[in-house]
Every structure is written in structure tokens, then in C-alpha cells.
């Protein structure tokens, strides 16, 4: 028996219809769809308003993607493992406000590194609590994280504080101001590319490496694909679950700290209500709420797309009142497109 015997059975590619081929390609390249939409959006906007083509716009979109992007990376990992998290914004708010408050009242001179580490640790802890609760209650992650969202935010505003404050630690202000790149445009506008963007890049690389180059990463996908089989093959599902929520929490904590550094103020009401939009961005990037799918590249493309759409409406003269409807339409389109892909691709 030779290899050729089985080839036709695996997939008779030449005879595929164009639809099937597109669907196949999308499945193999999850970032393809959001990237294509991204390119299309840029071209359309650029055609309407040639001013769109400037470095500053790129910087703006990238900068505005940092917090949402960190959230999205966490959501991706949770979705890949077959869960769902809507508590990350509450975790971020709780961590950023508490850490900033404690540091600025007790050790205002603290450097940025310990502050970032505190954010990571605090977030991871709260995230792990989500995971433990989900294991313990055997309840859907969505429901449990709705509950913890209420609990975290309620705790923050009841026991920690409600006041916005501007006198954040100097190291945080300074860190938010560091520019990787600074340029004065022809119009005399200084354009800065903030250094904290590198932290997002780093987080993306680490998440990518984790998902693709550790056993844990494979366990995450295994868990999202067929948890009972993964368990039978020796993956510790409960531990994977705690891990993914801890990871999402950790990235949320980090996002919170960066949010404060870049805004130069700590507001406990910030970030609330961003949950569903972040999930939408991750889904736009090719992850499925049914679990087991999704890539870092796709997720970043999804976040960039949503941020871009959010940011360019003014430039093409669409009234800002249209923003919500446009984003909603994008999400519906993406949902329908992926439903079609899943139905059409070979071997389903």
C-alpha cells in the first residue's frame, strides 16, 4: 500500500468549487478575513480622504489598540479553551485602581517595573479565581464571569474607592510619556509613538509562543476542541481552565495599569462596558465562541479593524451617530461569514 492510495480520500482539491476553496483558505489562515477587511477599509477611507495616509493615523490606531488588544489576547486564550470571559474589564479596573491608589498613597516613588508586576499578579489572581469557581460550580463560564464581574466591580466601588484621581505615581506618568518615535509633521503636530506599545507586542509574542510552542498551549486548544477526549489523553482540564482565566486576568491587570499610565489618571469607572466589543473583535479575528479555534494574528487583526472603524468615521464624514450601527453591522457580517465558512469548508 502506498501513500497515493489515501491521497484522494484526504481531499480531492482540484475539483473544489471556488466557495469551498475560499472557506478552506480562511480556515487555514484565520487572520485572512479581518486583514482583508482591514485593507478594504483602509483603501475606501483613503480614497475618500487622502489625508488618511499619514503615519500619525497608524500610530493612533496602534496606540488605541493597546488596552483592547491586551484584553483580546486574554479573551482569545479563554475562547480557545472553550470558555468565555466578561469579567476582564472589572478585573482591570479593580487592579489598576487598587494598585495605583496603594502605590500613590504608600510608596509614590515606586518604579514602573514593580507596578507592572503588581498589575500582572493581581490580575492573574482574580482571573484564577474565575477558573476555580468555574471548576467548582461546573457552570458555564459566561454566567460565572457575569457574577464575578458584578462582584469585582461592586467590591472596587464599595470598598476601595470611587474618586477619579490625577496624582498618579510619577513613574507611571513618565512611563506613559516615553516615546519610541517622535516626529513633527508638516502641520507642526508632534506625533509620538508610545513605548508602552512594546509591552503589547511583547504580550502578543509571549501569548503566541505559549499557545504554539508549549504543551500548555496545545492543551488549551485540546480543551476547547473536545474536553472529554483531552482528559482521556491525560490533559488536566481543570488546571488548563484555571490557567486560561488566570492568563486573561493577568493581561487584563496589565491592560489596566497601561490604561492608567497612558491616561495619566485613575478612574474606577473606566473600562466598564467594553467586554462585548472585545469579544466581538476576537470573533472577528476568527475565534469561535464554541471554542477550540483562534490565533493571535487573527485576534490582533480583529482588534485593529474595530479600532480603525471606530477611529476613521470622522475622517470620511460619517456622523459619529453611525458608529454603533456600523460596528454592529461588521460583527453581524463577520458572524455570518464564519458560519458560512464552517458550513462550507471541506471535511465538515
Amino acid at each position, binding site marked *: 500500500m502506498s501513500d497515493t492510495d489515501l491521497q484522494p480520500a484526504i481531499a480531492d482539491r482540484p475539483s473544489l468549487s471556488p466557495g469551498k476553496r475560499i472557506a478552506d483558505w480562511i480556515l487555514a489562515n484565520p487572520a485572512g478575513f479581518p486583514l482583508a477587511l482591514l485593507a478594504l477599509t483602509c483603501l475606501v477611507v483613503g480614497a475618500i480622504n487622502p489625508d488618511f495616509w499619514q503615519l500619525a493615523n497608524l500610530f493612533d490606531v496602534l496606540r488605541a489598540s493597546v488596552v483592547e488588544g491586551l484584553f483580546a489576547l486574554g479573551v482569545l486564550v479563554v475562547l480557545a479553551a472553550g470558555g468565555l470571559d466578561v469579567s476582564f474589564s472589572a478585573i482591570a479596573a479593580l487592579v489598576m485602581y487598587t494598585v495605583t491608589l496603594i502605590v500613590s498613597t504608600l510608596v509614590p516613588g515606586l518604579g514602573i517595573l514593580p507596578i507592572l508586576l503588581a498589575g500582572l499578579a493581581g490580575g492573574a489572581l482574580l482571573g484564577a479565581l474565575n477558573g476555580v469557581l468555574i471548576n467548582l460550580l461546573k457552570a458555564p463560564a459566561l454566567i460565572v464571569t457575569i457574577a464575578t464581574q458584578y462582584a469585582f466591580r*461592586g467590591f472596587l466601588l464599595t470598598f476601595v474607592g470611587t474618586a477619579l484621581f490625577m496624582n498618579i505615581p510619577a513613574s507611571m506618568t513618565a512611563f506613559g510619556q516615553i516615546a519610541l518615535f517622535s516626529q513633527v509633521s508638516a502641520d507642526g503636530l508632534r506625533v509620538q509613538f508610545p513605548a508602552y506599545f512594546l509591552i503589547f507586542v511583547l504580550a502578543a509574542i509571549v501569548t503566541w509562543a505559549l499557545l504554539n510552542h508549549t504543551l500548555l498551549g496545545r492543551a488549551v486548544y485540546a480543551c476547547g476542541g473536545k474536553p472529554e477526549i483531552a482528559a482521556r489523553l491525560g490533559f488536566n482540564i481543570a488546571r488548563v481552565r484555571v490557567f486560561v482565566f488566570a492568563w486573561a486576568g493577568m493581561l487584563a491587570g496589565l491592560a489596566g495599569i497601561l490604561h492608567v499610565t497612558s491616561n495619566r489618571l485613575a478612574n474606577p469607572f473606566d473600562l466598564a462596558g467594553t467586554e462585548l466589543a472585545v469579544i466581538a473583535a476576537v470573533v472577528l479575528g476568527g475565534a469561535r465562541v464554541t471554542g477550540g479555534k483562534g490565533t493571535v494574528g487573527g485576534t490582533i487583526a480583529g482588534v485593529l479593524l474595530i479600532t480603525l472603524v471606530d477611529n476613521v468615521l470622522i475622517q470620511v464624514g460619517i456622523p459619529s451617530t453611525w458608529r*454603533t450601527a456600523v460596528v454592529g453591522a461588521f460583527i453581524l457580517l463577520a458572524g455570518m461569514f464564519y458560519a458560512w465558512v464552517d458550513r462550507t469548508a471541506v471535511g465538515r
Partner: protein
Amino acid sequence: MRGRSLDIQMVGLIAVNLAILAAAGLTVGERFLSPFNLQSMASQVPEIGLLAMGVMLAMIAGRGGIDLSGIALANLAGICAFLILGPIADSGMSGQVYLLAFGLLSLGVGLLGGVVNGLIIGFVGVTSIIATLGTQLLFTGIAVILTGGSAQTLGYVPALDDFANSPVLGLSPSVWMFLAVAAGLALWLRATKSGRLLFLMGSNHTAARFAGVRTRWLLVQVYMLSGAFAGLAGVVIAARTSSMKWDYGSSYVLVAILIAVMAGVRPEGGYGRVICVVLSATALQLLSSYFNFLALSNFVRDLAWGVLLLVFLAFSRADLSAYWSTAIRPRSKA
């Protein structure tokens, strides 16, 4: 069904309701139990109760079903009804006719939005959480575009205001309507073919399809009903606040889910009781009003809701395992 008219969940919810009433009666005194306050609290239940019933239906249908678009659709429905009719002065209608027309229009928009959800979920096959997230933004967006973002003020329309606020036989008409809708829904679920098949579909979608259930149409029906409830909620909101705005009740998305889960609706599908949803909604209302009486901040209430939800989840798990071990043992080897 026999044996389940009084289940643990229901007993628990009744107990919680009574406990809050008792605690409030003891600590803040008679004012809490005065007819006026009871009536006032009752009049706050319908809008969120209707939305929670929509969420419950989506959850019963199984496969992680959920409806996130409820409040967005309710606001859109009210806004559309108002924009079509115009202020009462311009419409030249009598109060009652205006109320009826407003109600029908709002209901119609709700139904339409629900059908859109149903088609996207049932026929295009988009996961309900993504589909209703998309339509939530879309409905909200349309409402913003239609109104330019500003509130639409109805002004004082006595018929509409009475609908939400003037007690008839102890409760305002909107509460009676809510109870009637709840009873109708309970009847639909328990005693009609579609309703009973819905529970079966939620329990095992594949088996339902294999047994010839038209699962797609059933899904359309579910989201259509949910949309209709949103439309009715739109009327109640308009009547209660004399105005409509695109972002009214932004907290309702999660509160509706909270109510459904506290009512023991199983998020994995196949189980849920209307009476429990009503009781769960009243429990949250009682707690919320009680906290307002105590002048506790709303943050404490949020914290309490979150913890309460976790407690209910823990409670339902414990209850379930107990059910299995006691239900099986006595009967084996009869």
C-alpha cells in the same frame, strides 16, 4: 408535569422573597410594606421581567442560546413607535387610542427585530451570542441614528402614564399585562406543541432534529417571542419614564441574564420555569428597593447581586447531585 409544580428552586426563591420582605419589614418598618411601596416596587418589575423572559426562552432553546439584544430592541421599539406616531398632540388621538397604537407599533418593531435575530441564528447558523451581540449594536445604532442621540420626550400622556403607574385592583395595568404575558408564556411552554418541543430541543438539539422537529423555525419562534417581549418592554419603559432614549437601561443586558440564571434556567438548555423567573425578578427588585431604603450605595447592591448569583449556582449544583443520588437509589432493583 406531576411532582414538579413545587420544586426546590421555586421554594428557594419564595424563601428569598419572604426573607427580604421580613428583613425589610423588621428593619425599615411598615413603610416598606405599605401598599404604596409594594405597588411602586411591582411597577418596576415588568420591564426587566419581560427582558428576562426573553433571555430565558433563548437559554431553554439550548446550545448556549442567549439574547443580548433585548433592551436595545426595547428602546428601538419605543423610539420607532414614538417617531411614527409623533407626540400625542400632533397625532390627534385620544389617550387610549394613542396607547393602543403605541403598543401595537412597539410590539410590531419588537417582533420584527426578533425575527431578524431568529433568522440569523436559525437559518444562517450564527451562534446566538454573536448574532445578538451584533443586533444589539445594530438596534442601538439605528436608535441613535433615528434620534441623533437625544431623548424623545413623550410628555404627560395620562393614559400612558396610568398604564404604568395607576393601580387597578392593587396593581398597575402594566403589571397585570406582565403577569398575563407570563401566564401566557407558561401555558405556551407547558401545554403547546411548540413549547414542549422547545424544551426537548434544548435538552438535545440533534435528537430533536432527528425526530422531525423543525428546529430552525422553532428558533425563529423563540427569538420572535423574545423580540415581542422586548417590544412590550419598550411600551412599559415609555409609559413609566414618559420618554425613550437609545441608552436607557444599559445595565439590563446583564441583569436580565442574572434574573434568568437565579431562576434556575439552565444555561445549557432544556429547563426553565416562568414562575421562577417572575419570582427571581421580584427578589432582585425587593433587594434593590430594600437597599435603597437602607440608603446603601448601589455598589453594595452590585456586589450582593454577583455573590447571590454565585450562591444560586452553587445551590443548583448541590441540588442536582442530591437529586441524582436520591432519585436512583430507592428505585433500583424494585
